[in-house]
């Protein structure tokens, strides 16, 4: 699996992501600068990591969505290439038109960093094949704007097409407002695009990948992607 991590000024979880990719695949991802106009040849997976691209000034992700490299990312996605967009990456993907909807201020109007529980809704996608459908995983969130909102029609489509891959839940998998820290509609933590090759999610699976650090719940996502490419090859 050859991955490319896109780095915008102000992105700050690119090292966390690079470590997770390295641990999963055994190879270093390419770090791609925002001002570049092309992805490295042979890229299998593009990752837009977390952080505060351009300081999150103006609107989260709005400036990054218009950076030179994003044309290449959109082209890559249009050809079916896999794009993993996490946290600020999710916000950028929404602003770039790769995913529907928008991420608003958390309902409590505060930045929140804590471990949350996610119910994995499907296991038949390249991003979730490392998990079982209905499985609950525990991974950290760290964001001030993670409150997913879209119009009724979009939400209905996302739900009817099974495009919600991760939902905030209780530890035993119940969808419950008490376990939804940011107020996202339908507890949405992660969605895919219509074609199923772009995943945007707010939580950080890349921060829970090492047993020695306590938890490995995030590993399934990376292991699943690796499997996907192995099978494909």
């Amino acid at each position, binding site marked *: 699996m050859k991955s490319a991590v896109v780095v915008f*000024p*102000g992105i*700050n*979880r690119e*090292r*966390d992501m690079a*470590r*997770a990719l390295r641990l999963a695949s055994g190879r270093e991802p390419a770090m791609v600068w925002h001002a570049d106009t092309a992805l490295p040849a042979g890229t299998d997976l593009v990752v837009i990591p977390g*952080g*505060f691209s*351009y*300081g*999150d*000034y103006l609107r989260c992700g709005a400036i990054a969505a218009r950076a030179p490299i994003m044309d290449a990312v959109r082209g890559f996605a249009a050809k079916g290439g896999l794009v993993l967009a996490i946290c600020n990456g999710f916000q950028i993907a929404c602003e770039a038109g790769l995913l529907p909807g928008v991420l608003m201020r958390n309902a409590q109007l*505060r*930045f*929140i*960093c*804590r471990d949350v529980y996610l119910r994995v809704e499907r296991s038949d996608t390249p991003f979730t094949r490392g998990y079982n459908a209905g499985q609950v995983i525990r991974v*950290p969130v*760290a964001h*001030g704007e993670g409150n997913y909102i879209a119009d009724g029609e979009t939400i209905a489509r996302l739900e009817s097409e099974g495009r919600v891959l991760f939902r905030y839940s209780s530890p035993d998998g119940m969808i419950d407002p008490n376990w939804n820290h940011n107020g996202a509609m339908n507890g949405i933590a992660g969605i895919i695009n219509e074609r199923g090759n772009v995943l945007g999610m707010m939580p*950080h699976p*890349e*921060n829970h*990948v*090492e047993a*020695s*650090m*306590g938890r490995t719940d995030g590993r399934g996502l990376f292991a699943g992607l690796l499997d996907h490419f192995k099978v494909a090859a």
Partner: protein
Amino acid sequence: MNQTLSVIPNEPAITPELIAQHGLTPEEYERIVKLLDRTPSFTELGIFSAMWNEHCSYKSSKVHLRTLPTEAPWVIQGPGENAGVIDIGDGLAVVFKMESHNHPSYIEPYQGAATGVGGILRDVFTMGARPIACLNALSFGDPKHPKTRALVAGVVAGIGGYGNSFGVPTVGGEVRFDRRYDGNCLVNAMAVGLAETDKIFYAKATGIGMPIVYLGSKTGRDGIHGATMASAEFGADAEEKRPTVQVGDPFSEKLLLEACLEIMAKGCVIAIQDMGAAGLTCSAVEMGAKGDLGVTLDLDKVPCRETGMSAYEMMLSESQERMLMVLKPDKEKEAEAIFRKWGLDFAVVGETTPSKRFVVRHGGAVVADLPIKELGDEAPVYRRPFTERGKQAEIDPASVKAPVGIAEVLEALIGSPNLCSKRWVWEQYDHVILGNTVQRPGGDAAVIRINDGPKALALTADVTPRYCEADPFEGGKQAVAEAYRNLSAVGAKPLALTDNLNFGNPERPDIMGQFVGCVRGIGAAARALDFPVVSGNVSLYNETNGRAILPTPTIGGVGLIDEFTRSMTMAFKSEGEAILVIGGTRGWLGQSLYLRELCGREDGAPPPVDLAVERRHGDFVRSLIRDGLITAAHDVSDGGLLVALVEMAIASGIGAVLEAPSEVPAHAFWFGEDQARYLVTARNVEPIMERAKAAGVPVTPLGATGGALVSISGERPLRVADLKQRFEAWLPAYMVGSH
């Protein structure tokens, strides 16, 4: 030269009022005139006020700070640079410092706290280190004071807003409430970075005719006189000083970090200094003075945010996210390309000279020409008179009213503002970014893995201000001892500390006495525990309308763990394990929270700190952790044994069955704040008892873990779940205005 300066137009005349507005005394002004042999220009007066104020010159504290122990075989750089540096082996060094941003945070909580974090991060990466963790120690006024809630909200949001965006985990610290901070909150921020031992960068300029380069954000009219403001008491007009507070831009700082580390790695840098307090003035003077060189600046080259800025404004601006560097002339182009890539300003604004003069040009004219050594490291030094407070009477535990029941006291204490959970605060800080946080906030010390391990750092920030006021010497010792204990409790060997000394007006002998006593106590403890002081900051004049804060010398401690997977936590691990207290319990109630919260008394001598015992017990606990003999460990501090024990229960959800020895009154036993104590749990008690006997360490069994209750024989049992609810409830409820 005299002539040139005397004809500069449009400058206000130097009057006694103008001198006083600049925070300079008539004697200091006399000294300036004598040094120059003429009247200073307005710009020069501003420069002197920036360099000779308390904040930058340490003029009241210097003679006392010199008594602190600053050396050890592992210390690479002690106080005097941007931050302290210690060697942790494997060619790696830890760079760290704590600094206050008290006055700005009171005036404008969000930006004041944010730029406090920004400033301390710059201090660390200026030395070539990548920041890996931040901590902070916050002191607020009485929760009932009308300003407190807004200050807490603003300061916490500001710290988070800066650190989260910059991309450093904020992993620990402390939050306290006391009416003595009503008009003057404290925001102490600590940053810790990692560097290679052979790639540390310093402020000292070398070489004549070297280009001095300005990097980072543009200069604006913000923060002018910030350092002078920080060197004076507050009056009723504190709010009017808002324009002296800077505005932070963490995005630019993140770019500055990456650009600085990149040009350092490319070998472009001779010397580097961040523009913090007193901005361009302080950084340029320090680089020259440290290198015994002169500096010439051409202000026409300085990147400015707005047009028409005067030399005076440019020299005193505290605009954030700026750096000054001396570059190797042959690397100038390479360095410039890197800065352009990161979208940052880069301008050659001056050069080093052989003259030992600090010369500033603006609009083609010389606006300042000053002796650089006298301006910098030869600023005035004062031996201020001080009076030391007499010892307080010891309080006999038997003379303190016993409570209705131990359970009632515990319920009250665990849900009190100072002992309750601070989750509401630290959940607003990204504490997991970089993927190396082994122990998150809420424990004795945070633990941060170094790169991919196996080593890790333990980090803590501690002080007990009410002890410091009652007995500055013992209080100073206790602050260091508690940091030492918190590091030991997670299994770390304490290596070095940074001190952030927050006090009132040093011109008052009783306040100066607090300062002197605390510094002596810190020095005694640091010496006895081999825990040297490698960096620090002094914040004086923390007074409003003549009322001083509690003396608050915050100690930031750094310790080393050889194998991060073996770091110890405080949570009970399983049922049926023995609970032991290490260290003797006399039931010391003087200055305890029991006395304050339950009896409304703030008197008596604070618990004495026996440093030899601290060291012995710390060594003992670390050896138990190293050899795998215990399953949990927790420092016993504020609130005493039972509060510490309940924190262990809450962290695990497991209860305990306890028995108190009868020789000490029960409330004194459970809530006394005797020092040098730890609570530990173990599956097998025998080997611990044997070791303890051999080492001369008192160990007392208290009971066993298990069940869903904390029960003490003869007392009402309490459900752990209910205690947790009380522990977690106070702060969130307070912040929404419920009480």
